[in-house]
């Protein structure tokens, strides 16, 4: 399921304005200065748009780094 992983990386790259190659396990607000609350909002909307899912309120708060985003998307039925 490499394609899904790549698509997820592209969403983060587009929304946080970082190179797609730099997206990985360490990508989080601690390593990406542009990842503020407004970009988090945009990121959640873009994730829902790209993967056709809807995050619950708790999940919106949970998705605070790359591995957690993957876990939440998997919970929502996205296969990696």
């Amino acid at each position: 399921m490499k394609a899904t992983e790549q698509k997820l990386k592209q969403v983060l790259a587009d929304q946080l304005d970082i190179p797609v190659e730099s997206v990985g396990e360490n990508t989080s607000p601690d390593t990406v200065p542009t990842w503020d609350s407004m970009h988090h909002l945009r990121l959640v909307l873009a994730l829902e748009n790209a993967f056709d899912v809807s995050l619950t309120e708790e999940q919106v708060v949970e998705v605070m780094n790359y591995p957690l985003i993957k876990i939440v998307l998997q919970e929502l039925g996205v296969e990696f």
Partner: protein
Amino acid sequence: MEPSTMDQALARARSEKTLGAYASLSNAMHKAPNGADFKALKLAVLRNFTVEPLLPPIEAEFALSGFRSETYLGDFDAIAADVFDSESRLFASQPELIIIALWLETLAPNLTRWDVRRTPPELDAAIEAVVEQLATLMRRVREHSTAPIVINNFPLVSRSSLGILDAQDPAGQTQALLTINRRLLEICRTLPDVFVADYFCAFAELGYANAIDERYWHKARAPLGQKVLLPLAQVYGTMLRALKGRAKKCLVLDCDNTLWGGILGEDGFEGLELGATYPGSCFRDFQREILTLQQRGVLIALCSKNNEADVMNVLASHPGMLLRQSHLAAWQINWDDKATNIERIVNELNIGIDSVVFVDDSEFELEWVQARLPAVRTLAVPKDVSRLRAILLQDGLFDTLSYSHEDGERTRLYADERQRKQLAKSAVSLQDYLASLELEASIDFVSEADVVRVAQLTQKTNQFNLTTRRYSESDIRRFIADPQCQVLCLRLKDRIAEMGLVAVAIIKYGTDVAEIDTFLMSCRVLGRGVEDALLAHVLKCIRAQPGIRTATGTYVATARNQQVEQFYERRGFSRLTPAGEFARWGIEVAATREYPDWIRVHAQPRLG
């Protein structure tokens, strides 16, 4: 940033309409602040909710239309603070377009929470108070800025607090919302250059559950769901294109399997599918939509590989046809290739190739035209013809924000032009031909009744336009009121028909020099010497002003106005600036200049 990165971002956003592609285009725009090929646009967004997720899609949508927006974003729910301080950051940013983005829950919570004891008069009074508050804000903006204002109307709430009772109640929640929207529109109509962004329809198309994000509304006052961001950005993009005169002007249609089902040359007149029953009804609906566009001022042309006489016979006598020859501005029905034929149509109508939309059912023809004329927007007839009608409505291709009497008359004007060309063929010389037209021009100062048309001409005229300065209706009103300005317009008629208001000049006076700020003419009346009548009058006006000795005019080169590059030079002006895209020309106004002798000029005021 490499230009190729920008091109990639543009191409990606064009082909995949996703939030990601739009975000990446918006990022690319921010990284290349001085990239060529974009026109700068100072945008101000005033808002009472969290619009931030909508901004990258709007910026991307504007970029796709050729504009680089530099955005001033007002503070959250602080519109009044910006508007009532004449030195606010809003006015300091000198916006060219102002978006007011409003959410009713923040603006007037009392109108979204329902109280069954409220009487209809109380409800009306509450609505009036809110609408009047908005009108005050917009009037205040108008005092300091002539920029067009785009304000949104309001979407319906998901389910009324009154349940099924709401539909029984003339003062129920749904009816109240419709009243608010209607009153908002009425107030906007009283203000110059204020337009309504239709949130009501954009949300209705998606449905409340898809369009509104309750989570982020509660967390961050950000009510817009992810599915509504692109549709709303497209609403603003369409409005910008309409304001900037980028709407498409001409629809070129194939005939077989596009205007009707079947192939005329094979199935014959009797065999065409066109009428009240499926699938003929789909083509009839398509034709109905074409006629609406024609009435809105879009030029309709046919481009078909057929025998012309056969197609004209269908237009004249097929009982299922709605489209008739009188609706057409031009046609090329022959066996030549379609790119060549579209170029002929464009030349005949004197319009830009980028204002053409071409519809065909053949993959081959679409690709052929796209490859040779990349500026033409091509649309394919869908496999499922019940969806044919809707293709004309997509992307707001032909959308405009105003409608003038000339729009409804446009096709007739081109039909008249064809007659004149027939006349030209029979005349022996150009002089004879021009004399035979019996041209009459009336030149006047512009009055209030002409403001819409004059502003429209400044926005739409590309070819015979010396400076291509685009002006809004309020700009024109400001010039009329300014004693240092004169706005002149020329109406033309000939022995065949009236052509209406076709040319505009704006003169700005200094102490001893008068500058011709704007000089433009509709391309429909090229080749008659009308421009010389108007220029003669402009120089007479300037000469009549005490103390003015010199008239100056400017040529600003654009992609479309090469034909007027030597306009001033050929009329005896001398060049004041070195060679380049921008050229300023001047002439002494001591001697009087006569009107062309083949045009009868009625001028107000009369000047020697």
